[in-house]
């Protein structure tokens, strides 16, 4: 069960610290959990794991492919590895390693791919991934989660630590706005209806859930009722929830910090087509573009992923 905590405007902590503090706590009670870094321990906060559990922390150096292979090998000795790199290096760069030494070999590898999409900020295009979900999704039986805030991130890390397989967690390194109240719990593979509504179905995940809710609340004042789903488990996707909530909606909008291909937008399009649902779909996300450099705020605007972009899209969709 979850409750919202949108009134608390002060971010509780960095998302990376949610990962790190949760892992340290999980490692306190589970002696099989290990953490691996590829020379980004200061950037990810993983060096705090090293301080807390030096015997179960490995810095492989700037060698992400080897990190995935070492993690696969550790999993064969019944360890539960969590690895970190920036999203593009934790997905695109090591796709074959995650696919074969991970998925195909049936090992367990938990990946924290940090700073997805516009979160790359000043690191720019080389450090940007708008396609990590699309890639990891193609690994059979993989699980993909995108954390909206630190409460959800903590829950995701604890939950995935219990499961075998290739798991990919997206999340900004920095603090993001609060959505959920402390103590909220979730269900893997189940979307959360965070706001009910009757005109529009808006499906999103990750930190832009806050922007989606901003937009929905502003539109409410203008008489447009938007239902917002936090699809924090992007794979497996909660198809049933989409089919249930799309009923009687005028339009459906997907909103993701990712390419519109291979992520939430594509999945919803497939669901609508395969189930002969005749509701117009608008996909908000990145279309045929590479990453750019700038502040996260600048890039969120540059890629049209702000609350006002959502408002514009919905109004356009409703021909208002």
């Amino acid at each position, binding site marked *: 069960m979850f409750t919202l905590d949108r009134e608390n405007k002060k971010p509780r902590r960095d998302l990376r610290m949610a990962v790190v503090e949760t892992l340290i706590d999980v490692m306190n009670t589970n002696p099989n959990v290990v953490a691996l870094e590829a020379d980004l321990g200061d950037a990810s906060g993983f060096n705090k794991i090293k301080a807390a559990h030096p015997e179960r922390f*490995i810095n492989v*150096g700037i060698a992400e*492919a*080897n990190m995935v*292979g*070492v993690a696969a*090998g*550790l999993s*064969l000795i019944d360890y539960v590895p969590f690895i970190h790199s920036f999203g593009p290096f934790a997905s695109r760069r090591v796709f074959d390693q995650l696919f074969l030494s991970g998925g195909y*070999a049936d090992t367990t590898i938990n990946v924290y791919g940090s700073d997805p999409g516009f979160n790359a900020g000043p690191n720019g295009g080389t450090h940007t991934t708008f396609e990590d979900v699309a890639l990891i999704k193609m690994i059979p039986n993989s699980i993909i989660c995108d954390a909206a805030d630190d409460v959800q991130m903590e829950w995701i890390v604890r939950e995935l630590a219990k499961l075998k397989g290739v798991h990919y967690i997206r999340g900004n390194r920095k603090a993001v706005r609060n959505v959920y109240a402390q103590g909220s719990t979730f269900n893997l593979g189940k979307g959360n209806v965070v706001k009910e509504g009757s005109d529009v179905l808006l499906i999103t995940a990750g930190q832009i859930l806050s922007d989606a809710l901003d937009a929905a609340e502003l539109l409410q004042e203008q008489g447009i009722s938007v239902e917002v789903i936090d699809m924090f488990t992007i794979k497996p996707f909660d198809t049933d929830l989409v089919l249930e909530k799309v009923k009687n909606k005028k339009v459906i909008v997907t909103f993701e910090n990712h390419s519109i291909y291979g992520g939430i937008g594509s999945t919803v399009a497939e669901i609508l087509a395969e189930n002969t649902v005749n509701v117009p779909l608008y996909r908000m996300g990145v279309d045929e573009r590479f990453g750019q450099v700038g502040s996260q705020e600048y890039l969120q605007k540059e890629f049209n992923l702000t609350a006002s972009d959502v408002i514009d899209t919905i109004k356009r969709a409703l021909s208002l």
Partner: protein
Amino acid sequence: MNEMEMRKVQLLADKTRLDVLRMLKHIGYGHVGGSLSIVEVLAVLYGKQMRYDPKNPNWSERDMFVLSKGHSGPGLYSVLANSGFFDREELLTLNAGGTNLPSHPDRLKVVGVDMTTGSLGQGISAAAGMATGLAMRKKDQYVYAIVGDGELNEGQVWEAFQYIAHHALHNLIVFIDANKKQLDGTTDEVIKQFDIAKKMEAFGFYTQTVKGSDIEAIDQAIEKAKAYEGKALCIVLDGIKGAGVPYFETLKANHSVKFTNDEINQATDDAIAKLEAKIGGAN
């Protein structure tokens, strides 16, 4: 190695070589060259050095093996079958639809295979992780890995080597099958290797070089490696692709061979007959 051990390992090598030829001739094609060049090291490992129980292949105290050069799966399957992991008859199902023996080792299918390999460069990283995990658990088992010299073209191999050397993993022995050929030609033609042993030494490995076909020398090198402390361990197998079958040793393109002409089939039959005669009633 005493005389009895030597006889046992030699017999295992002969049977393994025989079954590689039989299975590849049976299906009509396959990775003959690289399978034959690792027969002796496999025989030393499975015939003497490794601790395992073929009736309990997932035994938690077993030594582990990773064939990073996964395309030599037929060589590995032959030694596993001849070490009791599964019936030798099953070898003839190689690559058939529904088989448990795919061309490249699959730990979910092949009894006795510890890690799935085939995308070159990845197996050695997994072997490094396995050795790390065993060391973290303070277990006394060894991990053995075979990397091909062609496979050294892959960058990930060197990522793994620097990791293994940095941690001076004492429970992992890395073999490099220096058979001097890869798919498109000799390693000198495709991508020069220069001095592999010197490269490994420069990377921080205690490195020995032995003849890839010399059972006694391979065994001694393993013993020496195990006794060595403070560095990662590498044994370069100075070998010949297609080893043990004169026809395949001299055949230029011997990475993957099609058994479609009389010359190849006759040479293979002759080699099979010779090995059968050598092994005698035990084949």
